[in-house]
């Protein structure tokens, strides 16, 4: 269950607290830019971790905007090299098979620098949850396009817009990974508006539950706006996300885990007392 705390302001008699800031968040300002989608889904992700409450949590973060997840996740976190967070997480998981293991990677790290690693993990079926934060650009270095960029996206390295003839096509990683027998669960989410956030949380919960049951590899592609990298205002970014990305890559469960049809590959993980 979500850790609860007393409301900051005394409630009216008879009223109850229905919404509050999760305790696990450190007392820092958000490290992400205005309008960045990472903030919203880092919150739902941590809430779900708290809900399932694994006894042990270990994870890795790629070099990129997503590395701040290191501060957010309530467990032992290791900074990995760019493109290598997945392999590093696999090493951690081999050493700690009883820990809930999570790896965070951006689209630059996963789809450009280290594509082979996620495919090998999917083939292995290791009990690791991987979160891809996909905004189509290398946000940390100024918004150059990645292999996760939507067709037409204008960036410093695709000033006329990304086009297939010149830059190749977007790598449909979620669809690819869903094909592997070792993959227990694949979902795609977006957190650009409250309704999506609500449904995203349910998809994240399903992935985490599969990992807790020892089902094997789970994967969530999180489509995210990057107003800074896209050179758009936060509002324009959301519009762009809806019109140019979500129409082709909708929020959905691409592969659901069914315990009866596919029994867990590994021992279940213990919960914290």
């Amino acid at each position, binding site marked *: 269950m979500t850790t609860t705390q007393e409301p900051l302001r005394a409630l009216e008699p008879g009223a109850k607290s229905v919404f509050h800031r999760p305790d696990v968040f450190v007392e820092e300002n958000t*490290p992400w830019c205005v309008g960045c989608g990472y903030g919203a889904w880092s919150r739902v992700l941590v809430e779900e971790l708290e809900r399932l409450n694994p006894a042990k949590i270990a994870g890795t973060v790629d070099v990129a905007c997503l590395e*701040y997840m290191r501060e957010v996740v*309530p467990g032992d976190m*290791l900074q990995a090299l760019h493109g290598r967070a997945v392999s*590093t997480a696999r*090493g951690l998981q081999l050493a700690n098979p009883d820990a809930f293991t999570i790896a965070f990677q951006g689209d630059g790290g996963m789809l450009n620098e280290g594509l082979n690693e996620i495919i090998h993990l999917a083939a292995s079926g290791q009990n690791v949850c991987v979160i891809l934060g996909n905004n189509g650009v290398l946000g940390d270095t100024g918004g150059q396009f990645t292999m996760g960029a939507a067709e037409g996206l204008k960036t410093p390295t695709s000033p006329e817009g990304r086009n297939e003839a010149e830059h190749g096509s977007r790598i449909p990683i979620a669809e690819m990974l869903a094909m592997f027998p070792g993959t227990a669960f694949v979902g795609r989410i977006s957190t650009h508006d409250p309704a999506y956030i609500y449904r995203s949380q349910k998809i994240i919960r399903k992935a985490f539950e599969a990992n807790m049951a020892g089902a094997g590899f789970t994967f969530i592609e999180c489509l995210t706006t990057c107003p800074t990298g896209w050179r758009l205002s936060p509002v324009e970014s959301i519009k762009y996300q809806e019109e140019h990305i979500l129409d082709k890559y909708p929020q959905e469960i691409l592969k659901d885990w069914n315990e009866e049809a596919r029994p867990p590959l590994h021992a279940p993980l213990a919960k914290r007392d």
Partner: protein
Amino acid sequence: MTTSTTEETAVAAETMFMPAPQAMVESALRAGCQLFCAYPITPVEDMTEYWLKRVPDFPGALSFIPESELESGNMMYGFAAAGKRVAFASTRAGMSLIHEAMGMIMGAELPCVLFNFPRAGGLSISQADYNVATKAPSHGDEKMFVLAPMGTQEAVDLTREAFYLADKFRNAVMIMADYTLGLTMEVVEFKPLDESDLPEKDWALTGDRTREARRSLAMAASGGVTAANMATGVDETVGTISGPEKSAWRRHAKYQSFEPRAELTHLDDAEAAGVAYGTVARMILPVLERLREAGHRVGMIRPITLYPFPSDVINEASGRMRLGVIECNTGQMVDDVRLAAQSSAAVEFYGRPGGAAPSPDEIEGELLRLLSSANSSSEGTA
């Protein structure tokens, strides 16, 4: 610690006749190594196969085989971060593929052991990877300790000790073998090692939530001040001496605190000495004995640690004899010898790169030439 019971569970005899690479794996298993990362590349494939055969006798050792060297390096990083013993084996390009990960591993001060079997383009001896191992094992300021065994027994002993040293110094340790040692088969003995003075790994990422979360393992790495350091307050003193700078100096001091080792043969009264390591040193030994029997005052310095380099021994010897560095490359260790010597004029070089090895006759000719040049130069100064 992970090493206490492995000797009891091993079914292999304490003394065995076996190929050096397999003997090194046996030694690693007995040292409590739990993950062996290697991609098939000659002569390393035998090591993986032997590892898999022996794993059932060593509880905790994993039969997991990484898909590639690139992934091996990073799996090793994650596995070592959890405080467990891990090894990697390869040669040439395979070693280059973990170069990037080694920067992270050494920056985060994680213990691991590497087995290196440098070879030339074909399948033959090479010492051409001396510089990359001792000078720049990755990007950044980091160093790994490099131990160079001359034969199978020493390879076994140094492997056993390497895991201890890796934990003690929280650093990577490389066993610098070569392709010839990779093909060598000898009788070896496995001896236990007392590790009771090793501290607990209170930095290990085990995921345990009953204590404070551990998040800072790689944060002081030599990448310097990143946005993340700044945001998380790790680098709170930018402008003076930052956290990463302090940390880099501390690691530098750690590297310096490792005592170099060298084997000195017939050095006391020598007028000239060969300087060589690994299999090349072993090739020189019988020639040396023959020359000694014939009354020639030649000796040999064999660095056992290539990093840190036994500079003091070289420096002392260079004041009283001529030194001839013999290597299977175009001249790499000779740079360290010249830096250490009192005068670089006292140092000569004989190299056989590209897969060639010096024959006994060549070695004899080179040592005699060195001796005569020592005698002529001492006559010149007299």
